[in-house]
């Protein structure tokens, strides 16, 4: 049986009396790109820092490449590429020098050629002091730092922040190439379009707890679905009997068109719509952003079926 590259079990971190994360569990297989989503303060960075051994967990366990992470011990760091969410590096030395020093820590060798190739691909001048670089170019330095030693595990916190669309695509390509080569990728991002584009699975974090973890396609299905209904010319738009159609709502009315959102099966809504002179019906695809927002519009404690499932799995 293949060993998971990253395995997090019941990870909990409290900052004094403040909650960081609670009972987080997930694993990432080799070659998998795993999306890690949540609003600011949900606990994404806390999870990542526990994974990197930068924070001492209150309880739980983190394993990377089969080895238990001991805080402050640099566990398996020679095989991890890390891109922090708020990337800050020494301003005065040249990018090449700082990257070289960080690559050499721990005796790493042979990264110079890879560093040069990455810089060329990202159109980054490594011979300039980092302090003279624009925000986007500094982010490229962060990308080079994470990828330069061809790691087996990539921990990327907002890797495309501040990059233009072209560079963003190059970074996404780099992530996919690394995954194809067998690297496990933990991708924390606010850009849900890029998560849905490259991640196979994702976890959604809310107030320090995992409320969803599923393949992206499943997450998309779990949210509200949309129907766009065109009525024949001259037909009046019908009023919806809310009591008879629970979980269905009209999102928008246009002349001759209704935008309807529903949860669960489409059967009741189709039967209701069928009573009227319908011209055509389309089903716009739910975006991950819509699904994500729905998780956060629900009240804590009534999260969703998936959240309950997760708690069930743990117990």
């Amino acid at each position: 049986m293949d060993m998971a590259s990253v395995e997090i079990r019941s990870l909990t971190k409290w900052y004094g009396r403040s909650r960081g994360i609670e009972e987080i569990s997930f694993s990432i297989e080799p070659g998998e790109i795993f999306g890690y989503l949540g609003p600011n303060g949900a606990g994404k960075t806390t999870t990542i820092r526990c994974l990197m051994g930068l924070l001492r967990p209150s309880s739980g366990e983190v394993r990377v490449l089969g080895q238990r992470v001991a805080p402050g011990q640099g566990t398996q760091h020679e095989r991890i590429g890390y891109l922090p969410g708020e990337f800050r590096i020494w301003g005065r030395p040249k990018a090449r020098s700082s990257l070289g020093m960080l690559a050499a820590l721990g005796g790493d060798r042979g990264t110079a050629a890879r560093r040069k190739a990455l810089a060329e691909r990202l159109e980054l001048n490594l011979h300039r002091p980092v302090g003279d670089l624009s925000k986007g170019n500094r982010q490229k330095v962060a990308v080079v730092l994470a990828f330069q030693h061809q790691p087996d595990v990539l921990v990327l916190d907002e890797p495309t922040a501040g990059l233009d669309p072209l560079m963003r695509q190059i970074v996404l390509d780099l992530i996919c190439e690394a995954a194809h080569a067998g690297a496990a990728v933990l991708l924390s991002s606010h850009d849900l379009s890029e998560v849905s584009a490259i991640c196979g699975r994702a976890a959604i974090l809310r107030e320090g707890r995992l409320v969803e973890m599923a393949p992206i396609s499943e997450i998309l299905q779990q949210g509200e679905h949309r129907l766009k209904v065109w009525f024949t010319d001259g037909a009046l738009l019908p009023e919806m009997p809310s009591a008879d159609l629970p979980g269905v709502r009209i999102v928008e009315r246009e002349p001759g068109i209704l935008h309807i959102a529903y949860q669960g099966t489409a059967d009741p809504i189709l039967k209701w719509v069928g009573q009227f002179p319908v011209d055509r019906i389309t089903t716009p695809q739910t975006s991950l952003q819509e699904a994500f927002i729905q998780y956060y519009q629900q009240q804590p404690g009534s999260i969703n079926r998936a959240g309950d499932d997760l708690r069930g799995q743990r117990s």
Partner: protein
Amino acid sequence: MTGSSRPPFPLRLLWFWFLRLLPAWLGIAAVIFLMQIAIAAIVHDNANVRTFLGFLRLLPSIVRTALGGDMLESGSMTALLTVGYQHPFVMFLYMVFAVGTPTGLLAGEVQRGTMELILSRPITRVQVYVCAAILTLVGMFCLVMVMFLGTVSAVHIYTFSEPIDLNLFFRLAMNGGLLASTFGAFALLSAASLGRLYSAIGVAVGFLTLNYFIAIVAAWWPRLEFMRKATLFYLMYYSDLWQQWPLGNMAKLAAILIGTVIVGGIIWRRRDLPL
């Protein structure tokens, strides 16, 4: 890396930090070295000595105490040369290095966010701490040795009317180096314990300044003489240093130094860094 192996010692980090510190260290060392030459240039000449002593008498008594007190009144050239070792400006330069190095390397890297990058590589927290400790303690000790070299150079440049006992100055330098390194260790403890750069600097400067002023005031005001034991300076100034190696006090200073470094290391290893 297997489960039990430890990452190799991060010599590249040590070198990287060394290069960053080097300009400041060289600047401080040059000023301290030149101070010894300048003091020797004044005191090697009897006429200058009289003028110098006259000038010292004009100073407030507490300032005279800070410069060496009654010891200077003897007019001994050896005693006058020690002014270069305890001049407040020289003390200030030592303080700048003792405080600036560990706080800049530990608390400073944490505050800048670069510690997160360092610790994301195969390196342990203890190794990072050891690098900062080496640069602080060795740097402090080397500064004191530069001060001694300044005296040695001055003795060769100028002719003195009485023999200058360089062994005494070597003893002074070794004890001064130990004292300075101990203060460096306290600054290291402060940097390892506190999250913010300015908090670490504030506590370290406060500790050093308090020690210094208690030592001066206790030497100057007889009614406060009992307080002299409350400072680290006591272990150097109130010893038989002028006659022989004060091994007992040196051992105490070394024990305080090692204990402080170890406590700082334990705190640094265990605490969460505000990355």
